[in-house]
């Protein structure tokens, strides 16, 4: 008898259970591995693998952040694989780490190959089948000596443990039911089993989480300092954070962390006393130290997870030496120019503090364009201001700016699951409440008192909904900070001078959306710096300031959140986009298109991948991916661009993923919800607006704009809808820069609805989800993007 078609890992009870367990052992897993453990492992690893692929590509693109991230991720995944005794996977991860470090010329290819193997192996494991090809092949591929052996041959010291590792792991695989080959047995891990008791592990976990948070705010402080100059508060803040980490790590006996934290603290102490300034190379050094502390802590977390001794990091001594050099007063090596803000109010501050005549600041402002120095530095260079005065001015400025930065507030840490279930229950409460209040029996109640109570109930529930929504909201600050860092790195890498201007970092969004918005933003920022901003010579020729600006801002607009990514680069080149789109057959030869329509062409899939376009128009890499992720969040993206003045992308997102503003429309006996974000307006058409070609294709003339008219009843086969448009209503919708009209019977109301995804992965065409209406029935949410795309596709078919 065939296996039932359920997930083989779904904990089988009774007879099923034993057979699953046997299969697990047959796969070479230790006996104590429960199906649930493997399942959880597979779930996390599959998710992480996608990130691995992305990061490999990022690393190929030269992202150092990606490299560090990838290292960390591979390391964690290796630990997880080792923890449940999957030696083959563990070896591959290990080889990937080695390959990453050895950096052979075809590193990305090898890593991607390995990633593909991992993906297929995970898929096989999910089916309880052995891997399609043996791990050794992949390991061999990863560790083979590259053709250009002179540069990147792995040094024997690192190669040795790898082989030993391979041998040990291989032996373990051979004996199928062998006891778990704990990662601690591997010589390269440098640690024997540590045998921590659960209490210590829990306390260590807390220490790591707290330290992580601390380092997060440290990074933020440093970025603020880079932007606004140092302040006693920021140095004190840094000092406190590092001090706490030092204390904790000393207590838990993590020598590397303690040493690094201690040395950093010493440096910060000097900074605090004003012996040194937290800027330029010193700032970079502190950033490095913070970065490294993070890595060390993640290694500690890893070691705790696998219950081995804490590993020693080879990079620590070098970093310690650099810190010591700085403490000894030696100028830290290569000082790079920090980012600065031109035309800053610093001049005004200096005019007050140092009594610099306005004419001198003006002259300095001109001179700084040539020298590339900060205004203050320029003034110092010209002898108008003494350094100390500048520091005072910068501090004054920081003081002024700090009013806007958030203060650390008292918080309580709550399990995320609890928050989610609370929010979900509030969602259900809202639905039931409105069902109760709207029930005909309730409507019939005339008692003043009862009606009052009902009103009170409604208000409380509404307030509760607001509170619930906000519980999941987090500020965009962390994401923006990451982007600022990205711009900084990209700017250094590309040799273009770019500064970043952030605003509205305090704007809050649903936590899951904040996680999802990161990737599209990275794409767009990278595009802006790589392609949007012209090389220095071109900028100079156009008379623009040498330092380009990437603006990232967030704000509320209506019931949505708007995020804008703007650059002051060359702008999108309309002609080039049009030419390419014609060549690719996206539009027909003689079509006249609005700017909006032309610009949205860069979102077309395939359009972005063409190499020529990237060179011609300078835009479009991965823009279809950006558009799709924004749409997955039920958002919209639009472009504004002016030749020579730059490009601004504007993303409009709903406040949360769970609730949207909807327009409830009726059609025949049925009701549908149209997301208000997509609605431009709704109008009652009169006969003079309506035209019909060949008795089929209906169009609408609205104030001179000709729009296609689609009918909801025909789209959804709804019986009994109004057939004469004059008696009905037209809702004008916008999707991807294109507008069209949708004929419905009536607009019933505007309201917030709680989105319910459809179970079972059932997708209904042109429907993006469902919501419970106030009377308790289910209403479908119309997928405007899908309708727009479909209509656009047909349009193209007809006109070609």
């Amino acid at each position, binding site marked *: *008898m065939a296996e039932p*078609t359920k997930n083989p890992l779904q904990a089988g009870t009774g007879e099923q259970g034993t057979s699953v367990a046997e299969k697990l052992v047959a796969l070479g897993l230790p006996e104590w591995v429960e199906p649930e453990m493997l399942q959880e492992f597979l779930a996390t690893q599959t998710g992480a693998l996608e990130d691995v692929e992305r990061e490999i590509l990022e690393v190929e693109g030269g992202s150092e952040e990606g490299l560090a991230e990838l290292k960390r991720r591979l390391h964690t995944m290796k630990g997880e694989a080792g923890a449940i005794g999957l030696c083959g996977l563990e070896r591959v991860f290990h080889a990937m780490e080695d390959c990453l470090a050895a950096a052979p010329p075809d590193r990305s290819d090898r890593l991607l190959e390995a990633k593909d193997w991992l993906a297929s192996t995970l898929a096989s494991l999910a089916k309880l089948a052995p891997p399609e090809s043996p791990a050794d092949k992949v390991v061999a591929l990863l560790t083979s000596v590259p053709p250009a052996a002179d540069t990147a041959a792995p040094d024997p010291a690192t190669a040795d443990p790898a082989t030993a590792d391979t041998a040990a792991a291989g032996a373990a695989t051979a004996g199928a039911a062998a006891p778990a080959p704990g990662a601690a047995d591997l010589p390269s891990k440098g640690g024997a089993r540590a045998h921590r008791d659960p209490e210590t592990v829990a306390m260590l976990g807390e220490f790591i989480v707290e330290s992580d948070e601390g380092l997060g705010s440290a990074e933020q402080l440093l970025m603020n300092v880079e932007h606004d100059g140092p302040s006693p508060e920021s140095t004190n803040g840094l000092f406190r954070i590092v001090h706490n980490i030092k204390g904790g790590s000393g207590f838990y006996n993590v020598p590397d962390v303690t040493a690094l934290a201690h040395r950093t603290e010493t440096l910060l102490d000097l900074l605090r006393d004003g012996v040194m300034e937290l800027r330029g190379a010193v700032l970079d050094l502190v950033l490095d130290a913070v970065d490294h502390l993070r890595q060390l802590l993640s290694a500690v977390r890893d070691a705790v997870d696998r219950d081995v001794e804490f590993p020693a990091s080879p990079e620590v001594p070098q970093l310690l030496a650099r810190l010591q050099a700085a403490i000894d007063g030696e100028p830290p090596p290569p000082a790079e120019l920090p980012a600065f803000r031109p035309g800053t109010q610093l001049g005004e501050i200096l005019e007050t503090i140092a009594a610099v005549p306005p004419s001198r600041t003006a002259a300095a402002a001109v001179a700084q364009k040539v020298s590339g120095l900060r205004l203050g530095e320029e003034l110092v260079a010209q002898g108008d201001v003494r350094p100390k005065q500048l520091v005072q001015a910068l501090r004054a400025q920081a003081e002024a700016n700090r009013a806007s930065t958030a203060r650390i507030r008292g918080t309580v840490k709550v399990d995320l699951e609890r928050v989610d279930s609370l929010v979900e229950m509030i*969602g259900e409460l809202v639905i039931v409440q409105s069902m109760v209040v709207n029930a005909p029996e309730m409507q019939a109640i005339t008692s003043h008192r009862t009606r009052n109570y009902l009103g009170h109930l409604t208000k409380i529930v509404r307030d509760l909904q607001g509170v619930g929504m906000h519980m999941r909201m987090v500020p965009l600050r962390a994401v923006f900070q990451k982007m600022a860092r990205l711009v900084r790195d990209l700017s250094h890498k590309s040799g273009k001078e770019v500064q970043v201007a952030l605003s509205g970092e305090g704007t809050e969004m649903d936590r899951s959306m904040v996680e999802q918005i990161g990737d599209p933003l990275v794409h767009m920022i990278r595009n802006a710096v790589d392609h949007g901003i012209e090389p220095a010579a071109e900028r100079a020729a156009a008379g623009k300031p040498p330092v380009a600006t990437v603006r990232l801002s967030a704000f509320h607009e209506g019931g949505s959140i708007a995020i804008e990514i703007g650059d002051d680069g060359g702008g999108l080149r309309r002609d080039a986009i049009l030419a390419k789109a014609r060549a690719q057959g996206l539009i027909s030869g003689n079509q006249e298109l609005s700017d909006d329509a032309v610009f949205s062409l860069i979102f077309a899939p395939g359009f972005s991948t063409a190499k020529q376009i990237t060179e011609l128009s300078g835009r479009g890499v991965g823009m279809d991916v950006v558009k799709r992720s924004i749409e997955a969040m039920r958002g919209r993206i639009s472009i504004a661009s002016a030749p020579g003045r730059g490009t601004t992308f504007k993303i409009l997102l709903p406040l949360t993923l769970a609730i949207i503003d909807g327009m409830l429309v009726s059609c025949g006996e049925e009701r549908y919800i149209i997301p208000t974000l997509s609605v431009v307006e709704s109008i009652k058409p009169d006969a003079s607006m309506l035209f019909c070609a060949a008795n089929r294709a209906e169009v609408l003339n609205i104030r001179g704009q000709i729009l296609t008219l689609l009918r909801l009843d025909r789209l959804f*086969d709804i019986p009994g809808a109004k057939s004469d448009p004059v008696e009905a209503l037209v809702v004008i919708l916008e999707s991807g820069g294109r507008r069209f009209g949708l004929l419905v019977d009536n607009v019933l109301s505007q309201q917030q609805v709680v989105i*319910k995804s459809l179970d079972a992965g059932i997708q209904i*065409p*042109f429907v993006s989800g469902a919501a*419970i209406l106030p009377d308790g029935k*289910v209403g*479908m949410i119309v997928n405007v993007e899908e309708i727009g795309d479909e209509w656009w596709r047909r349009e193209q078919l007809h006109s070609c």
Partner: protein
Amino acid sequence: MASENAASDEAKAEARTAELGAGLAGKYMTFKLAREEYGLGILKVREIIGLPEITRAPRTPDFLRGVINLRGKVIAVIDLRLKFGMSKLDPTDQTVIILVQYALAGQDVTMGILVDEVVEVMDLQASQIEPPPAFGAGAIDADFVLGVGKVDKRVIFLLDIGKVLTTDEVKKLAGASA
């Protein structure tokens, strides 16, 4: 020789039947569609509800009757009559929705199935279960019938609900309009 072979074949078939019976023995909830009685493993059944108002899902096959609101969750409802190619029946006071939970493409899925009436929950012994008969060449693909239960004169088709609505079919639901 020949008879010996036949005998051993028969023995093998019997052994298979016994094995199948042992694997399928347990509690079943039975329901009716037209004359026929079907059985669902009791562990797959979450609950039975009366017929609520169903919201139609446009541009999907007939057998997907639509979706319902079950205490704030949106659940798809399959009309098993239509799924099995039978004629549609106007709901009676016996008509109910059985909520079943099963794994689809690695995910736990709750779905409602609309049936004429629920009969009972019964215990089926291994000896009462036979393998599904071959349904004849050209007949519908009936691999969703796990076995056939025989109780007195009743014949109960034991369903593998996961196979009744396969992944392919769910995908087809999605692609129905294209």
